[in-house]
């Protein structure tokens, strides 16, 4: 039983990774004009090139499910403030994504903030405006 479960998990991971590799695509399917925050618990994270891979368990109005994301390369993430160890399996995290244009789960991670308040990635336009408003006392 235990072995069967392990095989199933392995098969799932292979399918997940294979899907990720098969999904080498340009940015055309992502809406980079929007930045949507999505919170969940990290199930899998790979800081790799050419795109990072992240799976988080999300609970919202649609229920609880695992959502796969891709995002910037490790190198771009590093230059945007990411450092080794910032994201670990089991961490609660909020990612800021350019959502898929077809409205399905997933997206392109451009920034993230961790439970301990660390963050990497540029601010979205909405966040910049909110910060500017706060600075101006609005």
């Amino acid at each position, binding site marked *: 039983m235990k072995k069967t479960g392990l*095989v199933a998990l*392995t*098969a799932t*991971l*292979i399918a997940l*990774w*294979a899907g*990720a*590799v098969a999904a*080498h*695509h*340009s*940015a*055309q*399917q992502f809406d980079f004009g929007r930045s949507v925050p999505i919170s969940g618990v990290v199930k899998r994270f*790979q800081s*790799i*090139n*050419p795109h990072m*891979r992240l799976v988080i368990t999300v609970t919202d109005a649609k229920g609880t499910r695992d959502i796969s994301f891709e995002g910037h*390369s*490790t*190198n*771009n993430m*590093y*230059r945007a403030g990411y450092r080794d160890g910032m994201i670990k399996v089991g961490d609660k995290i909020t990612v800021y994504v350019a959502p898929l244009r077809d409205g399905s789960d997933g997206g392109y991670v451009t920034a993230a903030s961790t439970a301990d308040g660390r963050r990497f990635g540029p601010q979205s336009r909405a966040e910049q405006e909110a910060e500017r408003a706060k600075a101006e006392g609005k």
Partner: protein
Amino acid sequence: MHERPRHSRWAGAAQYSGALALFVALGFVNVKAQQPDFTGVWTNYVEPGQGRAGGAATAGGGRGGAAELPMTAEGRQKVQAYQALIKGTGDTPGGFCLGTGMPGSMLGSGGYPMEIIQRPNQITIVYEAHNEVRRVYLGDRIVPEGDRLPGRNGHSTGRWEGDTLVVETTNLVEQADQRFAHSDKARIVERYRMTRGAKGERVLVAEMTLTDPVFYTKPVTAEKRWAEVPNGHLLPYECNEEAWNIHLEKLAEKRK
């Protein structure tokens, strides 16, 4: 009037030449003084007040797609065949961890920075993305034509014209998978020179001319500018880990 003996003039010239050679040997006169040192890490140069990185403007095409470039029927057909093949996938060489190749590797560098290491007979250019490396050989480091291995970045030789480094790249393979698609008959000439930006900072400029009678009806030109990153570092760019991990997991599955 006393006329200076002819042999004396020669003797004077010889003395002058000897003195000059001595000064050169002693390093008092630097015959390479006008050759700038491009060593350093470079990123896109952004003109003040402009959001976009300077460079890659073309004469003979424009910034748009390959259709705007002065392509031959053969070149256009090959590019269209490639674009039809990948249509709807968004696939790119980079997505599969393959470097862009010249001239895209050069024109596209900067977002991921570029490092130049300059020695008298070899200038090494490293583009961080996909670890693309170009070696520009000068003088007796130049590899004989028959011994060159073609590739996506070709074989580059360099020479100095005053303060300008002229790099000629040939031995390219045919590539329909980049913006400046080209055949294996392509010849790319880059002219590198140092200038100064609005704040007085060092700005490296490259003027590129791509000549390819198979793909283009006339030369295609572009310009690229980089700003220096003081004490900058390139990051490692590993890209095949995912494919390797998948392979290992498949192996593990087979072993069960």
